[in-house]
């Protein structure tokens, strides 16, 4: 399951989506909006995605994971739109027969997502705002 949504995220739903009878572990990651970033007070975030490219890029990350680790299923969902402090922006769940694969694959998934998936956030602070985007420099 790979998706971009403007609805609140449910990690519980992702965990149930990826769990198979072969799974002995499900590792999950939830990214949440924090109130301070680089010393500035955040009011809220606005997320924007290039949806038609972002979802295929998520699938590519899942393919990379399957080449590296023995996993059962992978799910990644990113929220877009207006997010308040404490709300979840991204949820990832990876199931595997054994915990080490699940944990390593989940960590890899969020790192790669931030590098290659075209999703931007606008941080709106008490004293300004700035867009922050993906770090896809390896493709240059």
């Amino acid at each position, binding site marked *: 399951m790979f998706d971009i949504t403007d609805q609140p995220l449910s990690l519980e739903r992702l965990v149930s989506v990826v769990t198979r009878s072969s799974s002995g572990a499900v590792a999950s990651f939830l*990214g949440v909006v924090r109130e301070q*970033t*680089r010393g500035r007070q955040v009011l809220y975030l606005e997320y*924007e995605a*290039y949806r*038609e*490219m972002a979802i*295929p890029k998520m699938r590519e990350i899942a393919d990379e994971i399957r080449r590296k680790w023995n996993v059962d299923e992978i799910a990644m969902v990113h929220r877009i739109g207006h997010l308040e402090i404490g709300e979840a922006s991204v949820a990832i769940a990876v199931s595997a027969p054994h915990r080490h694969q699940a944990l390593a694959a989940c960590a890899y998934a969020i790192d790669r997502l*931030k590098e*290659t998936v*075209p999703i*931007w*956030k*606008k941080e709106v602070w008490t004293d300004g705002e*700035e*867009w*922050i*985007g*993906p*770090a*896809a*420099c390896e*493709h*240059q």
Partner: protein
Amino acid sequence: MKVRVRCFAAAREIVGSGEFIVDLPEGSTLTQLFDQVQGQFPRLQGLAGSLLFSVNREYAPSDKRLSPDDEVALIPPVSGGADV
């Protein structure tokens, strides 16, 4: 030839629209497209050094030659995100 350009985040705010059509000579590269677009929207120069491009939803180098009806996206970079 006509190429569809999508813009996001800071680029979208500068352009004032999420997408537009650019008319280019056949065989133009991404660099040539960007020069033309930047002529129209000079404030894009502020992003120029770090802007990434995609062509038909794949990241592409700036010397890539474009074909009619390609979908190009201006992908503004990162200045952060690694600290989450």
